């Protein structure tokens, strides 16, 4: 049995605010939260990270090219335009990695299990087609002075064996 849960959203808000402010000095505010039957990134740059453990699924970050450039520009202040170009996708992937990694620490307060993430997959450009697992997602909008960041959280919570057996126990008693 699996379930999607709104409690998974706040760790991403908190992590995104912390990470983007620290690495790029850009302030992030919370925007609109919505529900979609499947993940459809709204902007030209998408970063996809898988999560596996007691939560499984994908986190998809989407932002427009201008914000992506501003972000990388700030992160690589003092570097040459050539270096910024070379590091562009890598730096964006690392921001998504840091947000997801920091969020997993907030999601997983348990000492007995690990929530793993995959390395980021990045798609940038026009006329790109991205094939994502067709899962429902909570879509979180974040606002910055340079444009929005959209985070689609398409994860399912797996009940532990202990929780499952306690449900079975409750059912047999009634």
């Amino acid at each position: 049995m699996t379930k999607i849960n709104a409690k998974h959203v706040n760790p991403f808000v908190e992590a995104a605010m912390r990470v983007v402010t620290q690495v790029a000095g850009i302030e992030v505010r919370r925007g609109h939260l919505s529900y979609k039957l499947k993940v459809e990134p709204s902007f030209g740059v998408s970063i996809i990270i898988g999560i596996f453990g007691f939560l499984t699924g994908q986190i998809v970050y989407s932002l427009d090219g201008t914000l992506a450039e501003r972000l990388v520009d700030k992160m690589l202040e003092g570097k040459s335009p050539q270096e910024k170009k070379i590091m562009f996708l890598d730096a964006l992937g690392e921001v998504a990695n840091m947000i997801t990694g920091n969020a997993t620490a907030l999601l997983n307060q348990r000492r007995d299990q690990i929530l793993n993430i995959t390395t980021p997959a990045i798609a940038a450009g026009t006329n790109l087609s991205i094939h994502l697992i067709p899962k429902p997602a909570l879509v979180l909008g974040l606002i910055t002075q340079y444009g929005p960041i959209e985070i689609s959280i398409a994860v399912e919570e797996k009940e532990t064996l202990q929780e499952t057996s306690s449900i079975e126990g409750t059912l047999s008693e009634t």
Partner: protein
Amino acid sequence: MGKRVLVVDDANFMRMIVRDTLTPNGFEIAGEATNGAEAVAKYKQLKPDLVTMDITMKVKDGLQAAREILESDPNARIIMVTALGQEKMLLDSISLGVRDFVVKPFTKERIISAVEKALR
């Protein structure tokens, strides 16, 4: 000559940040690796004084690489530098013999202090 550091991270960007932080502070970058398997091979080849090790990497992750390096050299000095600040990962790393656990994003002061402490 400064202490020699092997920087392990799959992201070029992060290797650059670690390199740019350590080099002006008197450390020498002995080499770089982009995954755990490369890290184990380069550790044997370069014999660095310290390794900064990411966890989430393709081919072989940083925890497995740290385990293998410490099995072959129990005196190896490794600090984990990862976005995954989960308590179990921290405890697992410490029980392996890793010297410190730095969570990304980090400040320059934090990484320098971790490296200096691990090298004492």
